[in-house]
């Protein structure tokens, strides 16, 4: 759901959105929310970059960084999960209140509560992420501790010859309920962008493009899912090859994985 990836060719660049990639003009395209587990996690990562004590971290610059990050993503016309936008709206509100303290002292208490709540939320998630790491470092069975390799079996008091786990039971009941209901098999309509559609769209748009224009610019607006973006990118690329073969347009790519540019043939 937070799977936003504008890189048309691969998403090999792991890590967090602000990781740089070679050319500066490309940098903005690599905003990538894949590495985050939600808005608080993103905020926590921004906070960690400041290498400050989370308990004392200044909320205002953090809010600004978050908003800048989201704005970058929005400028690129990316779909951003609702959670991220709710947080952005809330931080924008918080920011305005921090910049313009309310003359009424009661209202200012509320701001203190809000910043404290945010700090607490960050601290708590940080604590749990640390806890997860510590769990991983415990001496695990099968890794650092081993059970008897050749167990011998004797009766226990329960004398159960048959055994089943709770998971087995629940999964089994889930299956019964799923299959017992009247089933209507619906095949979700695929929203993959066909090459034909892309070619049609390119033919229409290309005549007005006398300057080299990046391929992504030709993608339809409102692509809501990363899969749609990828699908549209792929079909537009294939269509552009076809149209280049027909002599309708020209293609340019400066190096491997560099952006692909298109322009109309007429003005060549």
């Amino acid at each position, binding site marked *: 759901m937070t799977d936003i990836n504008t890189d048309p060719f691969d998403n090999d660049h792991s890590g967090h959105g602000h990781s740089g990639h070679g050319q500066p003009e490309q940098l903005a395209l690599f905003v990538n929310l894949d590495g985050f587990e939600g808005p608080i996690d993103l905020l926590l990562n921004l906070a960690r970059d400041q290498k400050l004590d989370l308990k004392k971290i200044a909320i205002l610059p953090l809010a600004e960084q978050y908003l800048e990050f989201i704005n970058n993503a929005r400028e690129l016309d990316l779909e951003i999960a609702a959670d991220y936008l709710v947080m952005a709206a809330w931080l924008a509100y918080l920011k305005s209140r921090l910049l313009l303290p309310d003359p009424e002292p009661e209202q200012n208490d509320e701001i203190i509560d809000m910043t404290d709540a945010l700090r607490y939320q960050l601290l708590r998630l940080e604590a749990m992420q640390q806890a997860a790491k510590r769990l991983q470092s415990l001496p695990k069975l099968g890794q650092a501790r*081993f*059970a*008897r*390799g*050749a167990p*011998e*079996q*004797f*009766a226990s008091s*329960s*004398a*159960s*010859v*048959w*055994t*089943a*786990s*709770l998971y*087995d*039971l*629940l*999964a*089994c*009941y*889930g*299956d*019964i*309920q*799923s*299959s*017992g*209901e009247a*089933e209507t098999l619906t095949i979700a309509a695929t929203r993959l962008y066909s090459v034909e559609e892309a070619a049609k769209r390119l033919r229409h748009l290309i005549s007005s493009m006398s300057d080299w224009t990046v391929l992504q610019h030709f993608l339809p607006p409102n692509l809501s899912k990363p899969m749609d973006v990828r699908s549209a990118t792929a079909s537009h690329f294939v269509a552009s090859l076809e149209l280049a073969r027909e002599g309708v347009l020209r293609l340019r790519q400066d190096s491997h994985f560099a952006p692909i540019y298109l322009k109309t043939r007429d003005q060549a």
Partner: protein
Amino acid sequence: MSSLDKLTEYAATLEALVFASDKPLRDRELQHHLPDDMHVADVMAVVMQRYDASSGVELCQVGDGWAFRTRPAIAERLQQHKTIERPLSRAALEVLAIIAYHQPITRAEIEEIRGISLSKGTMDILLELTWIKPRGRRSTPGRPLTWGTSPAFLDHFGLSDITDLPGMEDLKAAGLLRKGQILGALMDHNAGDDDASDDSDTYDSDDDGDDLDGDFLEDALLDAGYDGEADA
């Protein structure tokens, strides 16, 4: 490090190796883990000291390898009721799940849900495991016997109360309803949506107040093993 410490340390290593192995380990395999100037026999002699006659376990040579075995006298005593655990059959698991979620439920109702008739052995297995028990009779014609789960069932599955079973929403959220998203809160409603609704013992999965027939209630209350409290 003194040579004694070193010997103890290597003894611990070989002891752990033999313990974790699924088959007897040969001298040659054990020697790999020792420095050249140490001999398996010497090191195993140290391990052997721990498993003296008062231990329930003995270190023994099996063929040309080393293994731990339960001491024969004890093994013989325990062996008398040796069992081999096998996974419950799919049919038995299905019946158990249906009983757990729909109790009290009659045999006919189980068959209706599964769409096939119950073979005798299936209920027998569950009874033998003491995971199910009779839960009184329906006050409908023929007064059919109903079935429910027992405290042993809760114990085996690590539940403190039958209401700990995840409802449909929970199952769906946990990804256990693989098909069909239309079920909604089925668990919370299905007790009342058929002709069972006029039965006196309609089981409402939503609260733990079991309304049961008189004589059964007594059994339930007398059952010392049952612990109605949630959250041990």
